[in-house]
């Protein structure tokens, strides 16, 4: 069989710099959804801390240690990003490998908030959306996870099949913000 070349979700689409904003693709490593069983949240959180250095995140929050993130991902669900998940966590939670299912990008720059303000129906200003906040919302019509990883950078995760749409929507908003000068 021919040798196959793996392509990242945004291969050929990113990086993109327009005006005062930049989007780059993030290679997150393994992504595993962690859905705690009833009554197991505390045990799960301790086991995650022991195995990966991150506790189970609070609602709308994020825990991280080095390149490992535990991103709150909805009602009774978090996404462990980075390492291969410790199999023992399966005692406390349903684990699903979603590594190839998501496109992950980082949006940064002085106008990043203005770009997102055109796309998502949440207030992304620093006072309302501090570093370490992680929400599920919609970016135009896409269901996304949006995290402020540092003051000037947002991490956006969307379904891999929607990578072109994600980049197109970001590009359109970046151009519109840049055109205002």
């Amino acid at each position, binding site marked *: 069989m021919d040798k196959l070349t793996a392509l990242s979700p945004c291969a050929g689409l990113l990086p993109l710099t327009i005006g005062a904003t930049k989007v780059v693709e993030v290679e997150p490593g393994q992504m595993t959804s962690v859905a705690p069983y009833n009554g197991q949240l505390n045990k799960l959180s301790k086991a995650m801390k022991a195995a990966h250095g991150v506790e189970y995140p609070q*609602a*709308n929050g994020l825990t991280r240690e080095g390149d490992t993130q535990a991103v709150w991902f909805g*009602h009774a669900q978090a996404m462990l990003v980075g390492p291969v998940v410790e199999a023992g966590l399966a005692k406390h939670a349903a684990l699903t490998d979603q590594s190839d299912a998501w496109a992950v990008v980082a949006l940064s720059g002085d106008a990043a908030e203005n770009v997102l303000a055109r796309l998502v*129906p*949440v207030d992304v200003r620093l006072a309302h959306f501090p570093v370490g906040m992680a*929400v*599920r*919302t*919609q970016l135009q019509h896409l*269901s996304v996870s949006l995290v402020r990883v540092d003051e000037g950078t947002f991490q956006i995760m969307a379904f891999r099949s929607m990578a072109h749409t994600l980049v197109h929507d970001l590009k359109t908003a970046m151009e519109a913000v840049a055109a205002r000068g």
Partner: protein
Amino acid sequence: MRITCPICGERDRREFYYKGHAVSLDRPAPDAGEEAWDNYVYLRENPAGETRDLWQHEGGCGAWIEVTRNTVTHEITATRLVSEAKS
């Protein structure tokens, strides 16, 4: 219109999917009889005033939410998770 998700906080209406009256939280017992089941499946109130609906925070955390709202003033007076309403 904005709805306060008990998990995510106040969000835009576009993130939510509307199901209908919260009657489906009060499913009759299997042997409750024809009249109770007829009411449950087919008959709905059309109140001018307070009503309870089910909404799903589809574009957010995914939770089902029971919303108490007023059909006359459009005021939303309460929201709670269906998982808590049932427990």
